[in-house]
């Protein structure tokens, strides 16, 4: 089982690398050592084990208990994947996934089971999260309602899933509208939808008027948009990341969506108005919505990319803040923190000397400032010096350990 998973990973990397210009492999991950840095409360432990014989989840679980000297404590395990998302480890499958994502550092975060449930998911490692900065339909003070999402019908634990989409701003939008956030960078799925021109009816001070509008024309099978179930064909697009699209051409709207594709928020008027989110009294508002009584079973507010499709309580990014390895974070990028696309990858010369023709590998960009995840240690990624030094020290240390 484990071996198979590892093999799968190997083939994956091979496929990825075959795209590279030269079959030059630079992943340290294949060296066979997984460095683990685990955190429990305020304590850190560092250790390493061979990648090809890690045993199963249970073995790892007890290993951690021993290392942290907490044999009686029930733990929840989480790890930071290469997108900076906090994902759970609770079975052999996701344990293997965790190992495969280590390159070679694997960061484990241990929490007590009786503690407040950890919000796993995209951006959950983020330090601070400003408001969406949406204009228009927002009411004053709507953001202050930071109430916890109400636990409703619960089948799978929400923290076991990575968030790929959410309905937001339910409290401030008209019921007929839906604001959907697609988290592209948590997944390799394509966004997967097409838009077209159409005519829309609007109520104006001079009566009902027919105006040009933009509609979703097609969903790609297996794409992110389709898999969320939150967007449908013939939904009218009203806003893109808070900007009204009225008067904009189809190409302009397309370009806006592409430019925001890393964190796309579309406000639509669904063609099917039967699944609208209903307001459930003022207490229950917040960034998350819940189903109306007639909610059909097909769609859920928050979907998982790996687990079984199930209805679950939505977790919005705003109420799920988990501190990562805070000692390694730098806080100097407050300036444009509201942007998720500041992950420009900067490679310095030492790597370029080695790989003149590595032709820019498939880096999915990360938020370097907040979650420095280094894929290839030979490439020094732009990050504070002490941090890089830290990493190098780890590496050396482990090598001596494993040797």
């Amino acid at each position, binding site marked *: 089982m484990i071996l198979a998973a590892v093999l799968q990973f190997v083939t994956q990397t091979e496929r990825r690398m075959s795209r590279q210009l030269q079959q030059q492999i630079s992943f340290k991950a294949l060296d066979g050592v997984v460095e683990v840095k685990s955190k429990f409360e305020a304590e850190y432990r560092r250790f390493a084990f061979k990648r090809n014989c890690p045993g199963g989840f249970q073995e790892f679980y007890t290993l951690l208990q021993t290392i942290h000297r907490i044999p009686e404590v029930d733990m929840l395990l989480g790890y930071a994947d290469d997108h900076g998302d906090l994902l759970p480890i609770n079975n052999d499958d996701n344990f293997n996934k965790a190992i495969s994502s280590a390159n070679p550092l694997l960061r484990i975060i241990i929490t007590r089971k009786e503690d407040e449930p950890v919000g796993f998911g995209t951006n959950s490692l983020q330090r601070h999260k400003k408001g969406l900065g949406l204009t228009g339909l927002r009411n004053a003070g709507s953001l202050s309602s930071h109430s916890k999402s109400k636990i409703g019908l619960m089948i799978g634990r929400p923290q076991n899933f990575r968030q790929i989409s959410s309905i937001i701003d339910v409290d401030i939008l008209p019921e007929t509208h839906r604001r959907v956030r697609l988290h592209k960078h948590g997944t390799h799925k394509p966004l997967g939808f097409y838009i077209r021109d159409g005519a829309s009816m609007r109520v104006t001070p001079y009566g009902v008027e027919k105006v040009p509008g933009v509609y979703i024309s097609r969903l790609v099978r297996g794409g992110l948009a389709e898999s969320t179930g939150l967007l449908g064909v013939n939904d009218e697009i009203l806003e893109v990341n808070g900007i009204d699209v009225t008067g904009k051409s189809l190409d302009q709207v397309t*370009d*806006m969506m592409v430019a925001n594709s890393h964190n796309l928020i579309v406000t639509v008027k669904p063609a099917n108005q039967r699944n609208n989110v209903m307001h459930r009294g003022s207490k229950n508002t917040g960034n998350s919505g819940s189903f109306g009584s007639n909610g059909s079973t097909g769609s859920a507010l928050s979907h998982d990319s790996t687990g079984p499709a199930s209805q679950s309580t939505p977790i919005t990014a705003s109420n799920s803040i988990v501190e990562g390895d805070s000692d390694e974070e730098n806080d100097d990028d407050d300036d*444009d923190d509201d*942007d998720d*696309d500041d992950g420009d990858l900067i490679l310095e010369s030492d790597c370029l000397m080695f790989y003149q*023709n590595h032709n820019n590998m498939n*880096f999915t960009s990360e938020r370097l400032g907040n979650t420095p995840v280094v894929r290839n240690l030979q490439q020094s990624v732009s990050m504070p010096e002490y941090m890089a030094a830290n990493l190098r020290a780890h590496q050396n240390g482990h090598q001596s350990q494993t040797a």
Partner: protein
Amino acid sequence: MKRFRRHGQESQRDRLKQELYQFNKTVEHGFPHQPSALGYSPTLQLLAIGTCSGAIKLYGAPGVEFMGLHDENAAVSQIHFLPHQVELVTLLDDNSLHMWTLRAHTGLSELLEIGRFTLTGPPGAPPSVTRVTAVLAHSSGELLLLGTEGGHVFIVQVPGFRELEERNISLAEVANSVPDDNLGHRNLEHVEALQENPANPNHVAIGYGRGLIIIWDLEKRCAIQHFLATQQLESVWWTEDRGYILSSHSDGSYCRWTFGEENGNDVEKSDIPYGHFPCKAISKIIQLHTKEGTPFLLFSGGMPRASFGDRHCITVIHNKTHVALDFTSRIIDFFVIKDGQLNSGGPSALVVLVEEELVVIDLRAEGWPVIQTPYLVPLHSSAITCSHHVSAIPLKLWERILAAGEQQKTNYSKKPWPITGGQNLAPHPPQRDLLLTGHEDGTVRFWDASGVCLYPMYKLSTAGVFHTDTETNDNHQGAEGEWPPFRKVGSFDPYSDDPRLGIQKIHLCKYSGYLALAGTAGQVLMLEVNDEAAEQTVETKVVDLLLGQEGFRWKGHTRLDVQEEPVLYEPGFQPFSLVQCQPPAVVTALSLHSEWKLVAYGTSHGFGLFDYQQKMNVFIKCTLNPSDHLAMEGPLSRVKSIKKSLRHSFRRIRHSRVSLRKQHVNNTAKLQEANAHLEAELSKTELAPIQRKVEARSSDDSFTGLVRILYFADTFLSDSSHNTPSLWAGTNGGCVYAIILRLPSVEHRTDEPITAHPEKEIQLMHRAPVVGLIVLDGHGSPLPEPLEVAHDLACSPDTQGAHHLVVVSEEQFKVFTLPKVSAKMKLKLTAIDGSRIRRVGVAWFGSSQSEHYGESGLVVLTNQGDLHVVSLPGVKLQVRFPCIRKEDVSGIASCVFTKHGQGFYLISPSEFERFSLSTRCLVEPRCLVEVPLDLGASIQGVKKLDGYLSALSETSQEFQNSDSSARCVMEHALLNDEEVLQEIQKSLEGDHV
């Protein structure tokens, strides 16, 4: 920060913006697209051209230009100046007449529309009754004669367009005054021509389509004489001297009739000049007398239908000389300029407007050479593929280019430009600006873009460097005894020998005279200006941008074959070094650094750096994504898609034709129609509704490795204490490469090699194409151009403060610190308003209020056709002006910015629109047109004061000293001088108070 900014600062900034930025479209350069009518005023010496889009353009002396646009989007079919006045009448396709005038306002003339008019027929009459086919502006300046399709001639008083119904010449009146037997009850058809007798303004020749010509006396209101031709009439001409009337006909014949003889109703002479076999119609005929006696006969058309029916010819016959001027495009119209103050002399120049250019021929000089036109030059004599603007050319280089250009103009007439109307009052251009256009046939044209006239200076051809198939010179012309005696004239030649020769990128160093040209087949040519002709070979280097990697197969065109023998290059820019990229894909980026003697070039596969001093390749970087198959396709796949879309549009056309034909269905057509209908239905289903895919950019997209921009900078790349030379490259996939360069010292520059190694890479997360890279110095101003500091034209960049890198992608502006690259500021564009950056340039804006204040900024053109100015180094949006229609993709793609906030873009294949964003730098026509007063006064008296223009000028110096006319001049001057008027006004008001 923002919270604490005070309101006062904001408003101060707003005021500053007004002082710095201002948007104007100033002048159109080049040749009007689709000209449809030509007019000329001998008194004003102004030329007028009307176009299919309803524009009229007036041209006089170089720099004197006016432009007007009819509100109706209809083609201008005729233009007539009112004799001896500043008014002109245009007839549009929609049968409306428009009156335009050149009105003086604060010492400058402007073209204004002052009236419009449409003939109204009697109620119930068919529209053809009032459809105007011929216009005559009567020499009295008061009357307009309008011949119509119905055969009536309406007389209208101008400028007010008052119909004089009682004076109309109806078909019935004409029929009454002509003996019945001649007409034979035939329909006279429409009025084809109206001509006034040059000797007697009361006599007007009316030519009808069927061939009848009537001489009508306006005063007596009767026909004096009539001539009946057997062929369809094309045009009528009344000779000035002996009272002959010439008529040209549809069978290629012309006839001469004698006017004034009682019984001279028969043809005096009839001839088919290119006869024997059937000929095409002679559409216009002119005969002009000379002092020597033998007249000039000029006519257009009349070619033998079978053998030369496709030629566009004007035949000129004088004495024994007979030449058929063979033009490269359709003839719109022509006229002849005559010598002498009152145009009483013999013909001096023939002006021909053809569809793609204006050709002026010197009829005085031996061999009738062409006169070089100072404006209206066809920019598109071969299609424009790129353009490059260089501001403030040093005088030395300017003179060398001019001298090289002079030597090319051997075949032109020495005669000065014969159209000299108006005065150019524009201030002398403050600097010498050069616009370089690259063309499809491998030529580069150098234009003087300093002023209103885009004047051709020099033409450079790169075709000589290569072997091309078309070495065989077409020497068929000039063959002895050929009939008709053709002579090719005009420079419009859209047919490229080899599309691979096309010029794609140009970079000229104005200080050193080095020029880098890059073309369609991956060729990068280095040239140097030389005043002497030289015979030399070009040293060639082939550069493999794929670095020898296997498994790639280029499917596009092959690279060009280089001439191995020495070639004689004429004075001017001469090539000395050539780099050929392999694969030979089109060069997409080019940068020249003349101080370091380096040239960088990029294609869709990678980029390279070439040392043109040592003629060595320094560095190559492959940027190609191995899964990118499209990049290896070459331009062929594009051609395929064009073909496909053409096919679609043809289908659509066919479909629409079918629907038109439905009105008269016949049985045989039914089957065809059904088929066409079926096909149309099929094509409809093929065309899916327009939809757009929404997808994040990925590294696997096509053409991510295409190099969009190359930039040299002397900046802090590796550490913050030493600045080093560096090369920057930006790709379509949002990647920026920084290469550090090690240059040997000046004394070892020729022998020690230059080394380059990659230093940094920045992958923008949003992966949008990088379209601009600029390094800002410690003061936040862009680094100067190479050699600019050495020539004392810029202060050296500040190296004390930290440098910054500005990366402009199609979606946003981003400022990074140097040498440690980290994002500092950014400005998003696409995410906010959905527009993408197409063109970007750095410009300096001077304040209109204070002489010394100025700012650098980024000038940006988006795919929505909007111009933005973005401040530096703060990257804040300053102003936005809509400029180009967003549908005009080629216009947006052709845009080029100057260093002082102006720009050019193509509004048609043959015209550049010039615009200015600066309050300080503005090149626009400022000119004054006046009626020569001696003519105006003696013939006209003073009737329309405001039509005439103010202030006495040189042109009126030779004014006769008669009392009465002197008085009217004074009246003019007084009544038109605003100051005087205001003073009078004031004194009057003062009296009241």
